[in-house]
């Protein structure tokens, strides 16, 4: 691996399908499932398919082109895989510094810690809660990703027992944490094939840690507290040593030094993405749970609160893995939602198809409701209607993927667009009545909609969770 100090050869933005096309076999054989090589090249550049999906390219005669493409498409931040099986986690793999430049891949992995001095009961309970954490959000299930096993005892035997217990009870990837190589090795021996992430090589133990990483074929964290020169030196040394999958930890400060932490993560990512620095082109790890070190006499909630916002900050500013101690719903929920938000593809509008949706069994007296086509609004409203076991029509207005309040403020949801949507939906031939329920947040449009569409407007609840109740109280056409 060579060290690149200069500019990256082709920035991700400049990479055009032509660059890829030129290196493909160009036979238009369609084995990849695309119409032709150019269409395939376009998808490759958009990172929608890996180049390995072109079978001829993998043949011997195209080996050089393949290697060249690999190099050309290599992300600025290396992708590292931790764990095995279907819960293995990919971290890093970033192509750009800012999400609007392309999109972010591999959402920040969230790890919850256990220690070798917690009771067996506690350990099992925390593992279980981590594994079972799940939240449904716009058609996705948000989950936690890893378990960090820490040695607080510094006793190899205790660590071995704990790692064994953890490995037997979860299929989540592990991060094994101890700065003592002997302790870490004991842990590795308890789960030798699980490809955990090792935490951490420092200026004092790097050689032993490197040996462990090589022997057990796993990834290794490089820890250089608030010292990027040392971090870079250690990375270079470890690469020379033969360890290829590294994860960078410049240290997480929770109070004083918070600014340094932000700066370090930012500089690492900028050096990798804009400067093409391969020594810093690795995933990063942040440790929001350092907030617990400054807890003192304060109640637990204070540490959890600080840990939660530190985590959020790290999710926004370039952390690829974070380790947390709190496994409470209220601290984790904002973070997994934030992570989902930051990692959605900005190239794709988060919108659903506008038009008419039918819920339950409808007839000519069924209520007619209206909402916007922002995916989140739509899914929320739809799930509230479904869980309330309500029957009725829902007109989804094309607001260009904007939520109700913003759509009203931004004139994307207006009396005109509403009236047009009623017409186009064809609902007028499906119901006898002419009563439209609009979102509470669009109340100010009610008069104008009535005027333009000729429909009578009922202002519905501000939150869709109240729809069932609203219909029960205000919709009497059932009788």
């Amino acid at each position, binding site marked *: 691996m060579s060290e690149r100090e200069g500019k990256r050869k082709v920035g991700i933005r400049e990479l055009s399908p032509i660059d890829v096309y030129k290196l493909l076999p160009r036979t238009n054989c369609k084995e990849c499932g695309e119409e032709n090589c150019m269409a395939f090249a376009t998808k490759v550049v958009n990172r929608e398919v890996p180049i390995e999906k072109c079978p001829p390219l993998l043949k011997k005669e195209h080996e050089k082109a393949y290697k060249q493409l690999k190099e050309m498409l290599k992300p600025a931040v290396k992708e590292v895989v931790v764990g095995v099986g279907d819960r293995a986690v990919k971290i890093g793999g970033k192509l750009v510094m800012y999400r609007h430049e392309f999109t972010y891949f591999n959402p920040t992995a969230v790890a919850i810690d256990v220690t070798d001095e917690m009771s067996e009961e506690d350990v099992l309970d925390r593992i279980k809660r981590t594994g079972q954490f799940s939240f449904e959000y716009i058609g996705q299930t948000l989950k936690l990703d890893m378990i960090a096993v820490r040695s607080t005892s510094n006793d190899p035997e205790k660590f071995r027992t704990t790692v064994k217990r953890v490995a037997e009870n979860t299929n989540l990837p592990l991060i094994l944490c101890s700065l003592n190589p002997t302790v870490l090795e004991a842990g590795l021996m308890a789960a030798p094939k699980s490809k955990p992430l090792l935490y951490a090589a420092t200026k004092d133990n790097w050689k032993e840690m490197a040996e462990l990483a090589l022997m057990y074929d796993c990834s290794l964290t490089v820890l250089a507290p608030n010292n990027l020169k040392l971090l870079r030196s250690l990375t270079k040394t470890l690469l020379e040593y033969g360890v290829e999958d590294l994860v960078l930890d410049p240290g997480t400060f929770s109070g004083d030094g918070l600014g340094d932490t932000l700066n370090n993560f930012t500089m690492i990512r900028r050096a990798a993405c804009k400067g093409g620095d391969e020594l810093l082109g690795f995933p990063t790890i942040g440790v929001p749970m350092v907030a617990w070190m400054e807890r003192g006499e304060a109640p637990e909630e204070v540490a959890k609160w600080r840990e939660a916002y530190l985590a959020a900050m790290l999710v926004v500013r370039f952390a690829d893995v974070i380790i947390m101690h709190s496994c409470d719903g209220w601290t984790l929920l904002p973070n997994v939602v934030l992570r989902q938000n930051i990692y959605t593809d900005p190239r794709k509008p988060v919108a659903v198809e506008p038009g008419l949706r039918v819920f339950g069994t409808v007839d000519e007296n069924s209520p007619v409701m209206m909402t916007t086509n922002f995916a989140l609004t739509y899914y929320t409203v739809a799930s509230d209607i479904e869980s309330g076991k309500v029957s009725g029509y829902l007109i989804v207005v094309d607001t260009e993927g904007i939520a109700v309040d913003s759509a009203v403020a931004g004139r994307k949801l207006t009396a005109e667009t509403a009236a047009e949507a009623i017409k186009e939906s064809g609902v007028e031939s499906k119901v006898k009545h002419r009563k439209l329920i609009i979102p509470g947040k669009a109340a*100010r449009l009610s008069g104008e909609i009535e005027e333009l569409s000729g429909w009578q407007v009922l202002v519905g609840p501000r939150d869709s969770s109240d729809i069932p109740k609203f219909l029960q109280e205000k919709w009497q056409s059932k009788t």
Partner: protein
Amino acid sequence: MPKNEKKKEFLGLKLSSRLMELLAKLQEVELEDFEMDVGNLEIWIQPGAVAAPMVAQPKVAPPVKVKPTEIIETEFIPPVETYPGKVVEVKLGATRSDGGTRGKPVIVGGETTPAFYTFERPTPHPPVIALDVFDMKVPLPKAVKMHVRDVLEDPAAWAKLAVEKFGADLITLHLISIDPLLKDASPQEAVKTVENVVQAMDVPLVIGGCGDPKKDADMFEAVAETFAGERFLISSITRDMDVERCAKFVNKNGHVALSFTPMDLNLARELNRKLYDFLPKKDIVMDLTTAALGYGLDYAFTNMERARLAALMGDPELAHPMSSGTTNAWAAREAWMKMGSEWEPRELRGPLWEVTTALTLLLAGVDLFMMMHPAAVKTLKDMINQLASGSSGNADALAEWVSMKV
């Protein structure tokens, strides 16, 4: 649906013409010297290298690497950049000597680097927080209400509490009672409320409207004239208002305009351009729309981050301090709703929702936050102070968490 079909067709057309374009370019490219185009991978192209027979490396014998025995020292040069653009500085609130009555002004903007890239340059003016006060009883989330229960119907007392107890840098007075759909109060009644609030405390004021373009303009004008010289932030001037009229009374009476647009940088530029005809740049703050965590925060974040980077790269039409209606975080049902015991207590989940929304946007470059929950405000404030002060921590203790007993 005919409309959608049309859309798809249009998209198809666009795609295929793009393909044509690419193919046209390809012909040119192929005539060119190939090696130039593949960047520094040219080695492969060199005739000698192409002709060289490929020798498969036997896997068993990799080149022998000498394992280092010492740390190989390298340098680290901080990747510092300079930017041609600068965000304008805007002063909010005027003291007596300046023609107003406020205790001290608040200055926002002035950045020459992305938010908290303090390795490049320090933050010129740490972001500030305005607390919301409403002029009539509004439905508030339980977690917020418990802190302001006693002052809900007294905006002056509410503002005083927000400044003295919750540390507000500014007060946003939402004059929603003028809404024709609510109380339809007159601009003169609004002026009276402002008078009471102005008397009760001395931080700079943001004057919030009700969202009705006509009524807001009338109210803003009355307030602007009565309190000429105070440098209130008039929140907000939107595209569907009589922009010329608003800009003129803001300018004539010595206030500042908040230029509000719905998540579209081109619209923001357009509205700002309109304002430039009547207002100097230093009298404009912009609001690019804040969506709650989970409800479009990704748009808001990226929109603001792009705006700030564009400003630094020299786009003058976006080089204004940014304001965020962070209170919108509470529009997320996860912020206030009862959700089942594993997600409780919502008294903490709610303000954390607001904090998370706020700090995400803090890192995108927001200068002025309009917020609601006292705990969220305090947290954000502490964080801003921490980041802006550049205090350093003890690096030696950084690894201790590994063996920390919780």
